[in-house]
């Protein structure tokens, strides 16, 4: 299907990993080998990729912290002695339902966690009723409600604010990402009080819908107010 003349460098790069996995058919393999023998750059890519696989695949690359092995052994030793992992027969932990020997005890093993879970969920519901009921917020109190949901904004690692692209208050520019305002708000980001200020000066509620239809509207509104 692929003959020698059609195998160009891009094609070879795309297939180089499959080639090393032995996952290319004989015809492609032959034409790739032909290509490697004439193209220095691709031969260097092949040699390098092979070298990478060989180096990282080496057991010596598996570094573990000092004392890891000993700690693991001690920990397993201690855990395996604990009664929760020992059943009477010493075969199966009692809390695991056994497929081979269904007995009524596996029933009771089920029942306890289920009952405990029911109690826990019930308790949560009560606590929730008692404590976590905040009065409903006005739409104006939600951060960024004025911002057009499709507007592209910038977020970055280490900060929970989102910004207009180019804002000088973006922390850690290396981790910048552009997403829509809607996604940013969903992900728990709040608008930057500097670059997003015009969307934050909450004036009239009526302006809200106009702004959404016309993102430029907010700009005008804030200018007029000033």
């Amino acid at each position, binding site marked *: 299907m692929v003959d020698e003349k059609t195998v160009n460098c891009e094609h070879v790069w795309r297939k180089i990993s*499959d080639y090393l996995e032995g996952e290319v058919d004989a015809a492609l393999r032959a034409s790739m080998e032909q290509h490697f023998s004439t193209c220095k750059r691709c031969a260097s*890519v092949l040699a390098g990729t092979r070298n990478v696989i060989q*180096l990282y695949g080496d057991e010596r690359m598996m570094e573990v912290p000092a004392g890891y092995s000993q700690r693991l052994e001690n920990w397993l030793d201690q855990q395996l002695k604990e009664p929760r*992992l020992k059943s009477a027969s010493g075969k199966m932990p009692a809390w695991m339902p056994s497929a081979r020997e269904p007995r009524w005890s596996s029933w009771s093993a089920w029942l306890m966690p289920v009952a405990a879970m029911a109690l826990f969920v019930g308790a949560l519901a009560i606590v929730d009723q008692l404590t976590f009921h905040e009065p409903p917020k006005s739409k104006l109190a939600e951060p960024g409600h004025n911002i057009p949901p499709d507007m592209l904004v910038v977020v970055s690692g280490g900060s929970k604010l989102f910004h207009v692209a180019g804002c000088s208050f973006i922390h850690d520019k290396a981790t910048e990402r552009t*997403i829509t305002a809607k996604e940013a708000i969903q992900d728990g980001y709040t608008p930057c009080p500097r670059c997003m200020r015009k969307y934050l000066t909450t004036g009239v509620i009526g302006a809200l819908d106009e702004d959404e239809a016309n993102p430029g509207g907010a700009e005008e509104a804030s200018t007029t107010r000033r």
Partner: protein
Amino acid sequence: MNTSIDNSEQAGGARERELILSVQNGQQELFYELVRPYERRVYAAAMAILRNEQDAEDAAQEAMLKAFANIRQFRAEARFSTWLIQITVNESLMRRRRERTVVMERMDDRREGEESEYTPRDFADWREIPSEALERKEVRERLAAALGTLDRKYREVFVMRDMEHLNIQETAEALGITVASVKTRLLRARLMLRDLLAAGWEQGWFSRLPFEKGSKPW
């Protein structure tokens, strides 16, 4: 000479099967002997996902315990090492989900598909880094650091396939992604690492190493 390797592997495999059966039948004191050959791989798998020594060690310990608790479900058709690594990956992914990194993760994934093709950098020649160089801690650290700069999705696939030696299918299953994604990410990871190491050469990362003696044409 190949046969001798096969024989010794078979012998190891037979011993392993014996150990598995014994542990399944209640000889829990043999469990550590069973998992000891894989303890480093288990840690490395957890580390690839959690990126923190303490978290990785906790996850490794917990994964071992889960393997023990579920050892009866292990079927002889599977490779024990693969089974163990998969339990470790699950444990580590679960722990990461619990952390507050979820937001960043989702954005990472969103960029999927926007990938443009990767063009390997043009270096005239590949200067082979021999395996012996791995005896040196600084070389191992350089390699680990280069791997650490890859995006999570590339790094994880690379570690599972090329360091843990899972096959493509097993890597896909362990990480919960498609075989096609494994292949694309693996290609990308390998090419990027090759470029990083070559760039390292240029910056003299590997200079003054004994294996460089005698080769001078640059």
